[in-house]
Structures are given as structure tokens and as C-alpha cells.
């Protein structure tokens, strides 16, 4: 299937080729890798921190900045960002489905980049700007992507929908004027079981137009 095992260079979750890709990210920091192992510019910092201050296995206090609000909580280092959001903070828009970086139902933005919250540890999300589906628009209002999903019926049971909306918003942020084919490739990191892809593709293209019109 196109989105996996296609032999192409890894694309990031939101279809960009810049920075750390989703697959590299998962390879390096997958949930089984001990806390503190990070990549890129954070590596040295993390190593230094690890040497000085080994955390866990018991609960540790952390602070997460989610949708513009700081939340203090206490979690074991093995707790994923997804479980911290859902089980500790009752922020349940991101869904738990595959729990291993395949389906995208848990997609959130971390520093404006779409990531699988099931495959990032909560302690590693500290100091970063986390935006969940709830943070895309104030309650009672619809983000242009959400509105396009409604108009094109890009949802049935709706369990994959929040992940798809966040992934679409991130994709459009980097590809403000995508072609149909780019939408098909760029949203390949999420899966739907009811079969809403026809509406989804229309919704993504339509949302791009709405956001160009200054609605975002």
C-alpha cells in the first residue's frame, strides 16, 4: 500500500520532507526505547540531562503546555503523551486505536508538526507546544478544516476524524494549495475503517480554499 513499504524516502506524517520524519522518529524514539533518548539538536541536551538526573521508573512531575495552557501532572516516564492527555487530563479528542504509530487517530501537533501521540512519551513533550483537536478552534466554533469535514461528510463513526482533521490542518499548513494527488499522499499517515476517504479528499481540497480566503 502506498503509505507504507513503498520504497520511497520517508515522508513525515504531515507530508513534509523537512526535519525529522515520522518513520525516523518512531524508529528512534518508539515507545519501547528508554526515556531520554532523543534525536537531533536535543540529543546532547538529553544525554547531559540523563547523566545528571535519571528519572523513573516511578512517577515524576512534569509540565505540559497544551492548547496554550500549562498542565502540571505526575506520570511514570513510560506514559505516552496520548495516555497523559486522555487518562490524566481528560483531553480525549485524540483517540487511542492502534497504539503503535500506524493509524493516526491520535494525531496532535507538537511545535506545529503532526505527530502520533501514542508514540511520544509525555516526559519528552515537556517544553513543547502541544495542540490537540480541541485547540484548533474555540468550543462552539469550527476550524475551516472541521467545517469542510462536515460539509463533505468526511466522517461516519467519527473515531478517526479528530486525527484526520489535525493531520489535514498540518498538511495544509505546509501545502496551502495542494493538488488532489498531493492530498492522497499527504494524508497517508491516517486510517479510516468506515471508508470516508472520498469525502476526506474533497474536504481537504475545500479547506485549502477556505483557508486561503482568510478564514484560518
Amino acid at each position: 500500500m502506498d503509505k507504507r513499504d513503498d520504497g520511497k524516502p520517508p515522508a513525515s506524517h504531515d507530508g513534509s520532507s523537512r526535519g525529522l520524519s515520522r518513520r525516523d522518529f518512531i524508529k528512534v524514539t518508539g515507545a519501547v526505547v528508554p526515556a531520554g533518548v532523543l534525536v537531533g539538536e536535543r540529543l546532547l541536551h538529553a544525554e547531559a540531562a540523563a547523566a545528571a538526573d535519571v528519572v523513573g521508573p516511578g512517577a515524576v512531575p512534569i509540565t505540559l503546555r497544551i492548547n496554550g495552557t500549562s498542565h502540571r501532572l505526575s506520570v511514570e516516564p513510560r506514559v505516552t503523551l496520548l495516555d497523559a492527555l486522555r487518562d490524566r487530563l481528560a483531553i480525549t479528542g485524540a483517540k487511542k486505536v492502534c497504539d503503535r504509530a500506524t493509524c493516526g487517530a491520535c494525531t496532535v501537533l507538537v511545535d506545529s508538526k503532526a505527530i502520533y501521540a501514542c508514540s511520544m512519551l509525555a516526559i519528552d513533550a515537556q517544553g513543547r507546544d502541544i495542540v490537540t483537536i480541541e485547540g484548533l478552534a474555540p468550543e462552539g466554533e469550527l476550524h475551516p478544516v472541521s467545517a469542510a469535514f462536515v460539509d463533505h461528510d468526511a466522517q461516519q463513526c467519527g473515531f478517526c476524524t479528530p486525527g484526520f482533521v489535525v493531520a489535514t490542518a498540518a498538511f495544509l499548513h505546509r501545502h496551502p494549495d495542494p493538488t488532489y494527488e498531493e492530498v492522497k499522499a499527504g494524508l497517508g499517515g491516517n486510517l479510516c475503517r468506515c471508508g470516508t476517504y472520498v469525502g476526506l479528499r474533497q474536504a481537504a481540497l475545500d479547506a485549502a480554499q477556505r483557508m486561503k480566503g482568510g478564514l484560518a
Partner: protein
Amino acid sequence: MADYQWPQADDRSLIGKRISRLDGPIKSSGRATYTYDVQRPGLLFGKLVLSPHAHARIVSIDTSSAERMPGVQAVDVIRDAGQEVLWVGQEILAVAAETDEQARDAARAVKITYEKLPHLVSDVEPAQAGDRAEEEAEQVTGDPDAGFREADATIEGRYGSSVITHCCLESHGQVAEWEGDNLTVWASTQNVTGLVGQYAEGLQIPAGNVRIITPMMGGGFGSKFQADTWGLSCARLSKQAGRPVKMMLERDQELLVAGARPSIHARVRAGAKRDGTLTAWSSQAWGTGGITSRGSVNLPYIFQIPNRRSSYVRVSTNIGPARAWRAPRHPQMCLITMAALEDLAAELGMDALDFFLKNVGIMGARAQTYRQELLKGAELMEWKKKWHPRGDQTSGPNKRGLGLALHTWGGGGHQSNCNCTIHPDGSVEVSLASQDLGTGTRTVIAIVAAETFGLPLDAVKVNIGDSRYPPSGPSGGSTTVGGVSSSTRRAATSALNELLAKVAPSLGVEPGQLEAVDGRIQVIGDSSKSIAWKQACAKLGTTPITASGRRSRDLISSGVGGIQMAEVSVDIETGVVKMEKMVAVQDCGLVIDVKTAESQVHGACIMGVTYALYEEKLMDEATGLCLNPDMEFYKLAGIGDIGEIEVHMMTGPGYDDRGVIGLGEPPVISPGAAISNAVANAIGVRVPTLPLTPEKVLAALEKKGGAA
């Protein structure tokens, strides 16, 4: 008095239009609450311990270390020492702890020893199944031997579909909470009303003490009708701990035990005259749906070939148990029949479309619908322009082909009771204990009520998903829309008639001379003699009107026909099949919401592409294990795997006047067969079984000698 019959086409303001689903905004903004999302004070997390063996006897269970683990609050043994487990994943016990992580640790700390017993997990032919094979009586109609003598051409082939799973994105599970002797269960279910009795019986408590709530539902597809072992265990854990417990299946558990569609395979012989007239059919079918599976296999599908013989052997295997999967057994029977008949058309050198049209006369009650649909589909697919005989002879590795299939389904309406309330302030509520699986049930109910009252859609509040509302049946077999639309129409019409009786004196007419349109009550056809809806309702004083309605058979119908055509491309170097285009032409009586109806058909086609090309529950005979209980290797189609889909709903005279018929099952039946036929047309050889993986495509090509 207002009449409850469906309004004529010209009088419909909402029914039959394109209306966005009502719960769209809360779903697409992440604010819809599913069972998995339910938060309760003091909530504990439950975790199941499952059998790691396909067949074994439990020798001992030691939960003592688990009970001492941090955070553990309750342990519930489901299957005790001495009992057998019959598949990998069969439930043995459950634990509840303060956090999900602690519950997982505790589950791992349980010590269970087993005595392994012989298993069979492979999808084998009856001859290899020994005493696991159970034969059903052969069915014979006409004189099959004479039918084959009459035939100018016969084919023999082997066709089949593998075991697949439901893979609901919201896994099975629930939150259970007790208040004294009363139990509330938030459940991800297709059967809100029915679960009350199941919990009551399973826990030996009065049904009146059980309340089931299903706020939103993350997919069921036929797998969520039961309280299930884990539901009852969750309630017991909660009772034991004195706190609410959430226990949702993990993804591997969901794929192992929470639903599978049986395999069905067959060896087929079919014969026809030179002009395409079918004369004879013979099939020996077999398949497995786990230890036991219900339901029979009736072949051939739809085509009532005058001389036919069919048999079926059920093979018992140690895999997770079968559950109803959208249109149980129809997709598999459709594949076997349509593939064999397409092979026969190819043998005769006929275009499959012409061959099917030639045999419309034996397609039963919906024959003329099929004829119209085949012609419409051919137009939308540009069939005659694109079709070529078997084997795309153009150069290059990419071969294109066309295939078609037809399907049928019942429908009707499940038992449904509805209460409709008009409040003195003019607001309207409709309450019934149905559930919205994502099909648009909530929206359909609102459309019917708003249409009846002549009000805008947002004037109606729909209350569903709670067993405290009037009982409705399970959402299975495409029966929901018929049940809820007719009960809502009857309840709303009765409530309206009470209101008309209150208002009539003030307008100086009889109630029978009044109608509700455009937000007012008026003398029929005369808007000058009217009263606004709100003012009319104010005449109720302080007492609302509540009227009830039940499923009404004269508003609904059963029995639909649909056809689908697929265009595929196949890379004969890699074996990769791509769905390029599908056309779906579907009859389902009176369509209440065209938008969500089309979504159902789109979704069914996509689910069909998925089982046609990717899905298979892979079992390993040596270990008895399932090899792909996850979403990396249990593959679902992604957004880029789906080509163009064109949907045409058969509506208007001859269709609308049948009344409402459900749509969940019919369009998911044909895709596998249509795609299999398209691949055969593209590459010139039949790939015998679904899914049509690259490996199987290349094997079929190799057998044939390489080229298409």
C-alpha cells in the same frame, strides 16, 4: 388530521435532500464523547488476560502476585483451572487497577499454567480437517446432470475469501459503574436496548437495575451486539472494587477475539448455452468461522439457475469466534458466484455485461431493477468503450480490466418505539433507545420529525443511545433506518394531531383542515389563515404533548438489488492491484438523506476494496498464533489506495413509493467480486481467492505462463 404516510416528492422539504449529519460538528472538532472517552470520578482501568494457546486446558491460575501489585483493586476470574480454552485470546481473567499501566503490569504478573492440546487454525479443505468437518445436506434443484449435458460450455474453478476481522477503530469495551444495586454501563454497542437483558441475565440482577448508555459509537459493522465476557467481567470488577471501571480491548485483543468474518471457499462447475443462457451449476463449498459458526451457504447467489446442486461443509477451527460482519455471508457467496459466472462468460467469449443481461430473467424478484442498474452502471463506467476480452493486450506492465457483480439484501425495520414531545415553548424532542453507528441514524430521526412538523432541522432535539428511552432493536441487517424512521413518523404525526386539535378552534376550522408547514400551522393551502408554530404551542399552557409511535410496516420495505462495476490496473511485474474506479448503482427505496446515504455507499465500496485487496487474518499452524493482530500487518486501505467512486441511487417513481429500506449491508457485498472479475479481465487469469495480494497475482500469472 395529518396523515402519517410519507409525503409525495413535491411536498418534501427535508426528506430526500442532501443534509449534513447533525453530529458532524462535534465529531470533527473532537468534542464527541465515545465510550472510550468517558471519565468518571475514581475510575479504574481494567485489563484482560487472554489465552496464549489455541487449544489448551488451564492447569492452574495464581493471581496472588498480581493482587499485590501497586494499584490493583480487583481481580475477576472468568475461566478457572480445569476448563479448556479453544482459541488464542479466549478470556481467562481480568484485573482492575488505578492506572492503565498498573493494570497492564498486574495482568502480566498473573501466573497461569496450561496443558496444551491439539489445535487446528488453518483454513484447510474438508479433506484435511478430519473430524473437524461437518457436512450439511446437499441441496438439489432441477436436474443438474441434464443441465450440464445441455450446456455448450462449462467451466470449473475454485474461488474463496479468507477470514477477515472487523477491526473497529473504537475497540470493544465499556465503563461499568454501580450505585447500590443499580448498574450503569457506557458501552460501545450496536444494541443499547438488548444489552440491558444481557447484563441482567449475566449478573443475575433485575433488568430494571441496568442502564446502558452509548453516547457515540466508534464502529461496529456487526460485531457489537453482545454484552460479551469482558462486559460482564468489567461489571464484576467494578462491584468488587466499589468504583467505576473502564475496560476497552487493546488492539491485539480486538483483532484476536472481537469479531471475524468466516471464510467461504468453493469448487464450482457451471454451464451455459452458446448464447449465454445458464443451464447448470454445481458447487462444493466449505469454510470456517472458528469453533462454531452459524448460518448456511446458499449457492449460486441471486441467479436461480434452473438445474443446480450445492453442498457446504463447516470446518471447526481454533481461531477467534465469528461475528456477523456487514451482510453476513453475502460478500463471500457473491464472490464465488460472480467469479464463476464471469469465468463462464469469458469461456463463451462474451462480454460479462451482455452475459449478465442475458440472464436477468433468473435474477428473481428484483430482476428488472438489476436490468436498469446494469444499464445505468454501464453508462457511468463507459463499460462498452473500456471493455476488452480477457487479458489486456496493450504493451507495458500495467494492465487494466473491468469487472461487475450484483447483490441483494433484505432490510425491513427492527422493532422500534419512539416518544415525541412538543413543549409549550415550541421546542420538540424525539426520544428512542436506538444508536448511531456512524450511519446517520440521529440525522435521519431529526429529518423525519422536522419534516412532519414543518420545522427546520435544528428545532428538533434527538435523544438516543440510552436504554431509558423507549426500546429500539439492535442495529443489524440494515434494519435501523426502517425501524426508527417509521416509529418517529408515527409518533410525530400523533403529537402533531394533538396540537392541531388544540389550535383548530382559534382558527375556526376542524383539525382535519390544518397542516404544519414552514414553521406555522395553517389551513391547508392557505397561508393567510395561520398561526406561528411557537404561538400554537403556547396554547398548550403548561402541559407538553407526548405521543408515542412504533415501527410501521406500511412505511418501510425490504429486498433491494444493487450492482457494482470496478476498473482496476494490475502491475504484472509486481502483482500490485490498484482500484482505479468503481461505479455503484443502488436501490434502497425512499432515501431520507441523500448525503449520508451516498456516504454509506462510498464507505461500503472502500471497505470492499480493503477486503478485496488487503485484509486477511493470518494464522500460523505450527504455533496456533495469529500473525497479524495489529494494524501494521492487518492492512486497511489508506486514502491513497482508493480510486474514483461514483454512486448512483435509484430514486423516483417505482423506488420512493416502496418506503424506507436500510443501506448498511447491500453495497458492501459486491466490491470483492467486481474487483476479482476486473483483475481476471486485466491479466487474463483468475486469482482464485481474496485478498488479491501481489503474491497471489504473480502466482496466478506464473501458472498461466507470465503475460496477461
